[in-house]
């Protein structure tokens, strides 16, 4: 069971901020979310969207363990 966090425009699109999802890897999680919400699934693959697992940025796929925190991060802008 991974804890999924959405930030910025992704959260507005999905209509939720965080959820627990059963998934053994980031790619399985993406497929799972896309299956439930096609627009969200596409947005998660959108330009500039990054993924952090347990607060570290990851590229490509990664296995998830129980209690993993997976955050989807749209393009960032501070200041």
């Amino acid at each position, binding site marked *: 069971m991974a804890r999924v*966090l959405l*930030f*910025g*425009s992704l959260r*507005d699109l999905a209509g939720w901020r965080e959820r627990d999802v059963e998934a053994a890897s980031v790619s399985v999680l993406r497929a799972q979310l896309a299956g439930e919400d096609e627009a969200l699934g596409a947005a998660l693959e959108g330009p*500039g969207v990054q993924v*952090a697992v347990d*607060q570290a940025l990851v590229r490509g796929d990664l296995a998830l363990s129980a209690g993993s925190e997976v*955050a989807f*991060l*749209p*393009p*960032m*802008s*501070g*200041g």
Partner: protein
Amino acid sequence: MIRLTDQPFEPGALLSEFARGREETGAVATFTGLARAEQGATAILELEAYPGFTESEIGKIADQARERFGLHDLLILHRVGKIGPGEPIVFVATAAGHRRAAFEACDFLMDYLKSRAPFWKKEHGPGGQRWIEPTAQDHIDRERWD
């Protein structure tokens, strides 16, 4: 020091504290980013961070700045939550032996914060709300340091 706050803050109080008691620091540069009213187009700015991750990502670039510019010290304070027109959003201070290093480090940190730091920014205006992404200029500014 790197810190997020959901409360309004006073940039001058931060500068006074930061500049005090330095005997070998010749140069302190600061930058204060303020929320613009945009002639009424923006009523409220809303900033979101990813607590823990945001501070740690900023910390990495702060370490880069310390080393690259030989900084004596730096301070970054960033607002989160709802921010009204004219209120400070971000304050960056850098201390160095000489002015070029202090200026460049401050400039570098701001370019990073604008386009790479984990914040998401929404404008609430009379016409509704929209998410703001870094501009093309923000990316060009940051690439100057690569």
